[in-house]
């Protein structure tokens, strides 16, 4: 394989996909924790925060990498997508700001202000999740602002928010025990409804957005090869449903399962999306080949990536190993 104008865009699209996927899963659980804040008592909140404390910053860095790759590898698409999504991007950014700082301020500001910072943490998480969901919907619809598309965007905003809160609850089940864990199981039971509805709505709507997408999904033999995707998703949903009826178990077996299941669903959904849109990066307008930067520059970045990505994965694993096990209260010493 030679590195040229046909292979490089594919490699970078794959890298970008990987970082978006990692972002959605990793920041998904800590955004979800924020979304669940109103349902938790102040003590439970401290524990929930402690469970994400060492990770949230690195999780958000995957967003920076994803947007960075879009920026550096597909500059033309970057401009087109972000100017079209100007408003939801701003909402998301302000949400991310509120969340990130509330996280620090709530522990350092006078005790009397802590509740307000908790509210800011929730509000920021909600703004971020809803804005991302809205952008997803607009993207699927081809980035055109019509009333119908915006309505679809609102639907996906709701769906992604619920999905994040589900994965957040799954994280809390995994990282905590006793009363909080039991509570998290009931949160997850509520969330799975929303997630099923949301996933269903998006999967059903997507093929009807355009003729091209419809043919992609429903022509023969593709439809046979693709069938495992929805079937697997349904199977995982059923298993999740069942597991939530029995959790938490004695000896804390299977506390990891909801998190793993939710992750698997995200992965499947992601591959569905990738299949739908390839080779477009701006739906129906710009392909990855048309939008890519010059091969020389991409090669320079790729060389660095090949060295650095394994290192990043390595120290990420180190950090998850250091902070493995049930979350305890965090302190700086």
């Amino acid at each position, binding site marked *: 394989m030679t590195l040229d104008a046909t292979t490089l865009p594919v490699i970078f699209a794959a890298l970008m996909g990987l970082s978006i996927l990692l972002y959605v899963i990793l920041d998904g659980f800590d955004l979800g924790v924020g979304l669940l804040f109103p349902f938790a008592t102040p003590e439970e909140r401290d524990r929930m925060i402690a469970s994400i404390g060492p990770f949230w910053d690195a999780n958000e860095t995957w967003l920076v990498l994803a947007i960075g*790759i879009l920026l*550096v590898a597909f500059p033309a698409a970057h*401009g087109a997508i972000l100017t079209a999504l100007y408003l939801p991007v701003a909402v998301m*950014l*302000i949400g991310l700001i509120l969340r990130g700082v509330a996280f620090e301020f709530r522990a350092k500001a006078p005790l009397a202000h802590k509740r307000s910072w908790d509210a800011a943490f929730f509000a920021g998480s909600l703004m971020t999740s809803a804005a991302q969901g809205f952008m997803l919907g607009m993207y699927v619809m081809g980035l055109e602002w019509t009333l119908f598309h915006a309505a679809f965007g609102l639907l996906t905003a709701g769906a992604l928010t619920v999905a994040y809160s589900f994965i957040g609850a799954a994280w809390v089940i995994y990282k905590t025990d006793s009363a909080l864990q039991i509570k998290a199981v009931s949160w997850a039971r509520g969330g799975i409804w929303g997630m099923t509805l949301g996933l269903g709505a998006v999967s059903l709507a997507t093929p009807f957005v355009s003729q091209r997408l419809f043919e992609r999904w429903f022509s023969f033999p593709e439809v046979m090869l693709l069938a495992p995707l929805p079937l697997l998703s349904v199977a995982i949903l059923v298993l999740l449903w069942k597991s939530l009826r029995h959790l938490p178990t004695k000896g804390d077996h299977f506390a990891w399962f909801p998190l793993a299941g939710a992750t698997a669903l995200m992965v499947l959904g992601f591959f569905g999306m990738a299949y739908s849109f390839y080779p477009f990066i701006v739906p129906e307008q710009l392909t990855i080949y048309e939008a890519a930067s010059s091969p020389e520059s991409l090669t320079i970045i790729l060389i660095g990536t090949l060295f650095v990505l394994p290192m990043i994965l390595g120290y990420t694993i180190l*950090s998850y190993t250091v902070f493995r096990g049930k979350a305890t209260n965090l302190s700086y*010493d």
Partner: protein
Amino acid sequence: MDAFLLSRIQFAANISFHILFPTITIALGWVLLFFRYRFARTGLQKWIDAYMFWVKVFALSFALGVVSGITMSFQFGTNWPGFMEAVGNVAGPLLAYEIMTAFFLEAVFLGIMLFGARKVPAWLHILATFLVAFGTTMSAFWILVLNSWMHTPQGYELRDGVVHATDWFAIIFNPSLPYRLSHMLLASGLTVAFLIAGIAAFRRLIGDRGEAVSTQLRFGLILGAVLIPLQILMGDLHGLNTLEHQPAKVAAMEGNWETGPNVPLLLFAIPDEAARMNHAEIAIPNGASLILKHSADGVVPGLNDFVAEDGTPLHPPVAPVFWSFRVMVGTGMAMLALSWLGAGLIWRRGADALPRPFLMATTAMAFSGWVATLAGWYVTEIGRQPWLVTGVLTTEAAVGDVAAPMVMGTLMAYLAVYLFLMIAYIGVIFYLARRAAEGKSPTREDPRRDTPIAVPAE
């Protein structure tokens, strides 16, 4: 106002807010490493007290730096799509290397640095602290490579109006990088030095007689006293380099209209671009010639050399550059006076007996580093106008096609958030200082102790 002007104001607001926090974290990371190391060597309580206090400020500043940085990376697409389309082949790899070599390093090891003291061996904790400090410095390096390249571009060729990289070594080590990088790193060191001294002085003023306070006062003032002469020297060299590559910027900094010898150094003036002259000048004769050419009759470029045939100016707006430069240099002089006076007092009477007026002045200067840094960046960036990338791309050519009311709306929202966070940030630092002064220092324990202590989740 049109979308172009609003986008510029929005960009300036966002980057100004962002830069405040890296300015603190870049140097504070190294300072924390020093505190941590001193504690490991001496076992003295005062070093771990200092570490515990400043690590909180570090975590807070880091969070603000990260979230405002994320805003920055979206800005290019939302408001300046023309930038990446024209120079993406150079800017892209530089930004990518920043993300890969710096951001992940910081973000991952920050978790271990902040929360891992008891979960990992001491050497790994010190290593994590080192890697965080190293990561922030790497961020600064890569982003300043990009910024310096925008000021003094080389190592590229233009094909159909798009920049293509030809020589990466020339791009990275472009002529203004060494000066800009050293000047910025020193600025960060000074900002932290005065912040530490200022907060310690505040604690002393409200009655904290602890040993940790004296140590921090001594540390901050002496660090400041050592760095400020270096900074002034570096600033001078930076200016000489700018004179070579961007003479119009230097002409605006000096407020000099006509090219010629024996140009005075203006201490005060009101530049008037319409009349193309200054009002109310207070000047030191031959000063500018001496500083820039090292001889009284050295020829200094004037703004009138940078005007098109039809009269449109090709130089940056004069007043903001002129004034920002004076604010920066003025702050630098104030820093010199305060830190040397402080060092002298400490030498004569020790850090325990500093007079009250001096402590008040030190407290007032706690955030002086921010003032000088912002002013310096305004000189640099406004001084580059009308170019975004000198000689390659004008700012106007890069702006995106977004409706003005939309930019206005988001600008207002950002400004409101920033104002609120600014107040909260400074308020919390003083709140933490007050608590520490009351002896409610959040922790008075050895970080390597084994039993957990009840501290609310942080």
